């Protein structure tokens, strides 16, 4: 059975990745989880300078999900290069550097610093960041900005370039198309959904920043619909993300059109979840005589051809 996943010449050993921000830089849990058994690590978003992140409280649990407002706390790209890349040298999983920035220039600078490093297999661009020049409006909700970021970064790397899309838009397909048109090798769908929760005793929001990002099993149905929408819009591969907790969930994502999956929140519960999921997928394929997961991608059988945006509910 061919479990591997080829993206712009880079072969990842399987199609299960750990989602950005849910696995640190991989080294924290190297003693707990065998880093050679899943496809790759999407690093915590890296910015040019280290970021302290938001004040507490940063997380809270919600029904079948959680909200977070970490504020992209990260060690900064230089420290990642100096301290983390060496630690990861011996492990077999892929390393995809996830980049966050508050200007197009910053995205470019971070990528340029990382690009020469062999251990970095590719880039995932987190566009769910406030564009400081536009008063903090998210890049990810402006299709022109997503085009521009993709275009600029494409010029600067020959490695796999993956644009990670936000679900907080009317038509994610427009954004997927924009990324594809500017040369992205793949899109990641989805980042977290904007949500909030209140402590009714203190009357304060449960996150210091009022709103945060919703993740976990609760959002899986939404994520599947977004992947399906993107799959019907573009030809480049899609990383399916959102609420994946079991191998069955991963199969659902393959069937609606994801070529690979990322496991996020569930890492907090079971840091080895991605391995369990990769093994479950392999077992499923063996039992069903599927010789390549690629054959599952988009293999959903629908009686009717109703688009995501047209049905009466």
């Amino acid at each position, binding site marked *: 059975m061919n479990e591997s996943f080829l993206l712009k010449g880079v072969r990842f050993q399987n199609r299960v990745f750990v989602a950005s*921000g849910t696995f*640190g830089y991989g080294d924290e849990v190297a003693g707990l989880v065998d880093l050679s058994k899943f496809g790759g690590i999407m690093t*915590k978003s890296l910015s040019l300078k280290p970021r302290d992140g938001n*004040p507490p409280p940063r997380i809270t649990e919600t*029904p079948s999900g959680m909200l977070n407002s*970490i504020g992209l706390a990260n060690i900064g790209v230089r420290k990642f290069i100096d301290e983390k890349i060496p630690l990861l040298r011996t492990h077999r999983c892929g390393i995809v550097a996830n980049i966050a920035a508050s200007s197009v220039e910053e995205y470019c600078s971070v990528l340029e610093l990382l690009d020469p490093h062999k251990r970095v297999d590719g880039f995932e661009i987190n566009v769910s960041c406030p564009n400081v020049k536009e008063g903090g409006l998210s890049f990810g909700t402006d299709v022109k900005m997503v085009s521009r970021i993709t275009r600029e970064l494409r010029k600067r790397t020959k490695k796999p370039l993956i644009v990670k899309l936000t679900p907080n838009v009317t038509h994610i397909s427009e954004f997927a198309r924009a990324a594809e048109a500017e040369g992205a090798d793949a899109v990641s769908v989805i980042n977290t959904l904007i949500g909030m929760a209140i402590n009714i005793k203190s009357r304060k929001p449960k996150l210091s920043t009022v709103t945060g990002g919703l993740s976990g099993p609760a959002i899986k149905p939404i994520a599947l619909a977004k992947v399906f929408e993107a799959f019907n819009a573009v030809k480049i591969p899609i990383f399916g993300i959102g609420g994946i*907790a079991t191998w069955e969930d991963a199969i659902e994502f393959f069937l609606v059109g994801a070529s690979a999956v990322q496991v996020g929140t569930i890492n*907090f*519960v079971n840091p*080895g979840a991605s391995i369990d999921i990769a093994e479950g997928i392999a077992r499923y394929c063996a039992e069903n005589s599927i010789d390549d997961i690629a054959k599952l991608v988009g293999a959903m059988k629908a009686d009717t051809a109703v688009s995501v945006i047209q049905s009466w509910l």
Partner: protein
Amino acid sequence: MIQECSAVHSVEEIASNIFQLSFRSPSISRDVKPGQFVNVKVGNGIVPLLRRPFSIFSAEGNILSIIFNVVGLGTKLLSEKKPGEDLDVLGPLGSGVFPLDDASYETALLVAGGLGVAPLPFLTSRVPTAKKIYSFIGARTSAQLVKKGLRNIQSATDDGSEGIHGTVVTLLQSFTAQHRIESPRIYACGPTPMMRAVKEFAFEHKIPCFFALECEMACGIGLCQGCPVEMTNSGKKFSLVCKDGPVFEASTVSF
């Protein structure tokens, strides 16, 4: 740090609505230190989704135990565990532990409010025998005082049903006023207002003080960056309670 499929040993109500859950965890118990905690998967489903963190209350041979009161679904499910059931436990967690073995103190002053008492019995068991220990514990009412595993206890209750009618800080103040204490050091855990008061007291009396902090956690192992505590003077603005703590020297953290 180990993810261990433990087996529930016993669940006992050791005080009013306060439960002690013991479980067999040969690997985690091997090198657990006072102040460390475990992150426990309380149910099999996706609600509650996240693990729940609990301080180590006791560690004897293979058996670890935690104590808790039922405040939500997670602790409710834990209180209903049956001996023999599986318990998925991640631990021992935390690198900031209670420093106990150094020579720079002679007397350990243990201070706890409510369930903040949880890590102190295990701490007590590991204080070198040459040192003195005094424990100051507070609770809402007599029935909720947990004394198991503590030594030289003085207590305070909100309703005056046992010990003094007041807070542990009052206890601490009058005790230190009445006794000459050699090289004291405070170990404290409890609700934020109590911790603030203890911090002030320690600062005033120039007593070194270590806090075990709590906050909502997702992973407990440094993956999510979800548990920051603001630092007062170090280079970085935040530390992680789960990874850098949960025990901090009082003067280094601001809360």
